[in-house]
């Protein structure tokens, strides 16, 4: 089954005519993703790579059924585009854009909660179920269909780990990027919950980092509700306190935000711990999944 996206998932791309949107749309199509429509205000009636472009999400929905809205809309307009997708009741909204003001993210996330819509991101590479659907920007060569579920704050770190797994013939069920924070739609805990009930996923790799306290919430959930093996890698072991390590969420301030405290909480909760991608590989090989 996989989570969030599968063989028949139909994707609408917001910001499809932009430099990034049009390029990534082409790459996703080549991968086999069913992109049915694009939206860019003022560009309705044009085509991108054979995909019809509409002015409004509602116009697109008159002609197509859509399961996921994937947004490449620039930060200044990202909230508006997300609200449009949420009001149109598209069930999953993926926000790749980074740098959206916190107040906007807060508004759109709370609105999505009220409307019962799942938001992935912002600042996420998206979600991919290898061989089935890629609603994201993951490089194709790191992907291989299989049974390892991956949830990551960082896009690039998930590519790094999947590259190694794929090179060793270990495939992935779904790779979910939740985004770099400091505010998140879907959290590690929620994605873990989905993986737990997904028959295609046999074990979960959780990739976290310094900053914030989300991994502690995930640890409590792993201890209480997860029966599948979880392997966690927390990067930023060598990060200095108080420094902003690129991701807005990755500032170490409180004691619970260090890599060390997260690693120890996850270990206590029963997660296996890896120090680097190579250890993730060896642990999966040892588990024989």
């Amino acid at each position, binding site marked *: 089954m996989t989570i969030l996206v599968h063989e028949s998932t139909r994707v609408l791309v917001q910001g499809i005519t932009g430099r990034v949107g049009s390029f990534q749309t082409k790459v996703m199509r080549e991968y086999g993703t069913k992109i049915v429509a694009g939206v860019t205000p003022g560009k309705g009636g044009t085509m991108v790579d054979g995909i019809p472009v509409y002015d409004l999400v509602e116009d697109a929905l008159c002609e197509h059924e859509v399961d996921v809205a994937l947004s490449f809309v620039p930060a200044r307009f990202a909230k508006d585009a997300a609200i449009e997708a949420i009001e149109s009741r598209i069930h999953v909204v993926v926000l790749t854009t980074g740098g959206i003001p916190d107040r906007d993210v807060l508004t759109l996330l709370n609105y999505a909660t009220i409307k019962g819509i799942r938001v992935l991101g912002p600042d996420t590479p998206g979600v991919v179920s290898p061989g089935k659907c890629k609603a994201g920007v993951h490089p194709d*060569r790191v992907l291989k269909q299989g049974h390892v579920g991956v949830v990551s704050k960082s896009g690039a770190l998930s590519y790094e780990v999947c590259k190694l797994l794929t090179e060793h013939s270990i495939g992935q069920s779904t790779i979910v990027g939740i985004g770099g924070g400091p505010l*998140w739609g879907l959290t590690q805990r929620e994605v873990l919950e989905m993986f737990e009930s997904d028959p295609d996923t046999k074990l979960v790799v959780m990739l976290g980092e310094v900053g914030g306290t989300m991994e502690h919430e995930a640890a409590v959930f792993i201890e209480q509700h997860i029966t599948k093996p979880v392997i966690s890698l927390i*990067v930023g072991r060598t990060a200095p306190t108080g420094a902003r390590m*690129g991701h807005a969420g990755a500032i170490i301030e409180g004691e619970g935000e260090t890599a060390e405290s997260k690693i120890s909480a996850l270990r206590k909760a029963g997660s296996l711990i890896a120090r680097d991608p190579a250890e993730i590989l060896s642990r999966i090989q040892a588990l024989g999944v």
Partner: protein
Amino acid sequence: MRLLEFQAKRLFSEHGIPVPINVLLGSSSNLENLPYPVMLKAQVPVGGRGKAGAIRPAADANQAAVVLGELLNTPIKGNLVRAVLAEEKVEVQKELYLALVIDKLARLPVIMASDAGGIDIEQVARERPAQITKRYIDPFIGLSDYTVRYLAKRIGIEEHVRDFAKLVYSLFGILQRYDCTLVEINPLAVTSNGLLALDAKIVLDDKAGYRHGDLFGKLKAEQTWPGKDGRSRSEELAEEKGITYVPLGGDVGMISDGAGTGMLTLDLIQDAGGEAANFCELGGFGGKESMQQALEVVLANPRVKVLLISLIGGLTRMDEVADGIAAYLEGHELAVPLVVRMCGTQEEAGRARLQAVGIKALDDLQAAIRTAVETARRS
């Protein structure tokens, strides 16, 4: 951006939050007409100023001149003092704590109040969490009167509830209007004349600067007297160009195209026995220009003996960042060896472009890290 106390207090005053009478002092200020006795407070963006000796009393102009001389141009927790705020001394009956902050996991603004003011609130949170009262604010409802009454009752200032309500609403207004991620008053003093914000901390969301005209720029300019003590050329360049750069003290320079993979690379450099010189990442939309700028920033550090570029592109296109590396090499003589690890989106085109300028990109991260660390060790 964290505002300095005098900037935050100016915003407070403009929005009706009472603050002590104050005067901003530099090296040539006239000290005769200050509201003595005063407290002299070094304007540096760090907490714990009291313990660090950055807040000192002065009874008259002579004392003030001595204290000012001692504070100005002195580093406090790595920040050179360039301005001092002189403030009337206030008789305090009680010190409270009040803050509005975005709770990242709850995705809601939260208001926090405590009758344990004037001390390190994180310590109170650890040792006596019950002494901090928290209420979430629904962004679609806003602040409610009852929430204010609730807080006033919990922190024991019911007799000041009208003043308190006015202050809390003003504070929430500031949070919303200026895109703050934190607005804090610690301590909030109860005096015979009512409530008074003795300190002020405001953190602005830099991502929202574009919708505040030139306000964020002006506030930043007020702070950028040659800031941190001994700030390096790399740090200055990074700030000027808006590049994420954290100096770390070792000799292996590092540039990555993502935050997570950058942190991983740093961890692995240390595991391999090396010491990273810095953290520097392009962010998801990195292209030619940001790569060129990152190279300038990282290579401005004379301690760098080898530069490791760690790339695995999703949104970032390898052909574009390769163009950035090639363009940099055209204009500069490279003083240190370069190790490039490149894979991901458009990697074939990226490799070809690097090949054309004589760089063979590696595919394996561990191998690239070993090469970089060994190169640094040998040189």
